[in-house]
């Protein structure tokens, strides 16, 4: 049975292996350079405290390969589910060959176990290699990424560490199960993609924020959580508050960020204007005609100090970067459980209903 599984699978396995080898080679060739550039940059910026500028420059230089690789790791499990999972059984059903193979001297359960086991392990291995290689390569970039692209950020988190293995295993078994239920390859592929995409969206939006209770915090305003100030006229001062960063916790995943006034009430008005991306605009009644925040004074540090002195604060909840690995394990565990559940269902369905 192992031989037959391999014989049927070797084409797609070879293709996947070839793609991974090319990818790994490219990463292995460019990775060390990237790391040494980063080390040199850090050595240069630490003395004069300009590392934030260096990060911006460094990340800006490599953001396209960074995003492309992240995307590859995110898409790989879906491809596995679509092209390995869904056709695994529908292909047999469509050609009628299930009747051939189910009448050899092995039970259907054993047949499915070997197919699921071998192909599933290959899927996990492919996603694992891809995910860990990209994690290794991206390390300098992860350290210098803008907050929206930090390791804990929803898009990047799923493309790092061991989570891709969990996704791949789940997508594969999902494809197999949908294939068993739908019994035709193309509809099964479409349905697998739809369900998997929905789950991959629901996970970071609905589940992941609550894997551990978020940390609440109140922070003074500064360069890390404020993207500038504005004085549109009319007397009030506009603060461009970042929604994805809190000071002192670089790389944290910020779940909520709001501006509170000295009495602790949330300020929700922003005079209707909009600021840079990933910010919210909040108007505070601070004079822009005189004092540290007058037009002449902008954008002086004095104004920021004045706002902080008056008691305006950022109030945020976040998941700190230190939780990256715990989250990776928990999330991979959740997907492993889903995978086992679906696998159990597919065995049950094979015995009871599929014939």
């Amino acid at each position: 049975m192992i031989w037959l599984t391999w014989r049927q699978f070797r084409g797609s396995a070879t293709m996947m292996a070839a793609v991974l080898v090319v990818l790994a080679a490219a990463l292995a060739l460019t990775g060390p350079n990237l790391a040494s550039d980063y080390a040199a940059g850090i050595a240069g910026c630490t003395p004069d405290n300009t590392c934030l500028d260096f990060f911006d420059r460094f990340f800006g230089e490599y953001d396209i390969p960074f995003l492309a690789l992240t995307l590859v790791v995110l898409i790989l499990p879906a491809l596995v589910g679509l092209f390995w999972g869904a056709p695994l059984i529908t292909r047999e059903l469509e050609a009628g060959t299930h009747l051939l193979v189910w009448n050899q001297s092995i039970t259907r359960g054993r047949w499915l176990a070997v197919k699921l086991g071998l192909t599933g392990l290959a899927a996990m291995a492919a996603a694992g290699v891809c995910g860990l290689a990209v994690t290794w390569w991206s390390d300098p970039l992860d350290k210098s990424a803008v907050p929206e692209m930090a390791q804990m950020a929803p898009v990047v988190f799923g493309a790092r560490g061991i989570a891709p293995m969990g996704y791949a295993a789940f997508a594969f078994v999902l494809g197999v199960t949908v294939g068993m239920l739908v019994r035709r390859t193309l509809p099964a592929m479409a349905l697998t993609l739809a369900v998997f995409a929905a789950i991959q969206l629901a996970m970071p939006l609905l589940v992941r924020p609550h894997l551990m209770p978020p940390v609440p915090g109140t922070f003074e305003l500064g360069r890390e959580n404020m993207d500038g100030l504005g004085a549109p006229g009319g007397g009030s001062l506009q603060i461009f508050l970042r929604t994805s960063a809190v000071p002192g916790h670089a790389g944290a995943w910020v779940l909520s960020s709001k501006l509170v006034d000295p009495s602790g009430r949330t300020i929700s008005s922003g005079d209707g204007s909009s600021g840079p991306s990933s910010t919210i605009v909040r108007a505070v009644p601070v004079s822009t005609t005189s004092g540290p925040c007058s037009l002449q004074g902008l954008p002086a540090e004095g104004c920021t100090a004045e706002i902080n002195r008056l008691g305006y604060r950022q109030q945020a909840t976040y998941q700190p970067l230190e939780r990256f690995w715990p989250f990776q394990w928990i999330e991979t565990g959740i997907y492993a459980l889903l995978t086992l559940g679906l696998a159990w269902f597919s065995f049950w369905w094979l015995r009871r209903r599929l014939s």
Partner: protein
Amino acid sequence: MTSVLEAQALGRKYGKRWALRECTIDIPVGHVVGLVGPNGAGKTTLLKLACGQLEPSAGGVTVLGGRPGDTPAQLAKVGFVAQDTPVYAGLTIAEHLRLGARLNPRWDEAMARERIAQLGLAPAQRAGKLSGGQRAQLALTLGLAKRPELLILDEPVASLDPLARREFLQGLTEAAVAHKLSVLLSSHLVSDLERICDYVIVLADSRVQMAGKVDQIMAGHHRLTGPRRDPDRLPADQHVISASHTERQSTYVVRTDTPIHDPAWTVTQLSLEDLVLAYMDKRTADNRRAALEVQR
């Protein structure tokens, strides 16, 4: 163990429709059994129940004394060649044999190779490139080399031309004799079965109409032709299978265990085909009558 297949009130339904119902048969070991009936009569359902591809909805079935398809040992005893003789299009003939060798403990490698060589097939050829007849032969080879005690074939010759049909059935008969194999094959053409079967089951309208050894069946059925007569006036031990009347003449197909001595009748021997058709007809005639009665 003297039964190859024993079914007790066996039934299977898809949704609300019964594909097979109240099927009670007991097929002794060592026969080439023909399962015949019109399309949609439940032949495939019965065969799939026998090899464990389907679970019964009612009743039970044992094949060679075991529950069909339950264990590797049971699977090893029963070979199945499915309708349209599916094979893996992407695998070569040699790889199919390897598949058989890997998945069957009783695999007869020498026999498989010999058959393939006799058929003039190149082992390196992909199964997807084979003709219908060659594909059927490959599927049959897989079924035979597994060395089952019972080989089940579902419409194996349906898509073959007459020559390929004859070759296939010939090969099957030879193998059945050589390996003392019981064979159960279905067809909707009696002519296919007439040549090789010594036991026949007629299935129509989801029910078994008749089952028995061909020679006994032939001996027990007669066509009577003579002056017109009502069926009520036939002796009680003569069961009418079909009847047709002209103004002056009646023709009956009857089943009886006693010889017919009535000098008014001209008794003729039926061919198996006539007989099977009479049984299939009887069913539809009964149905028509039932339908009419309901309408009244």
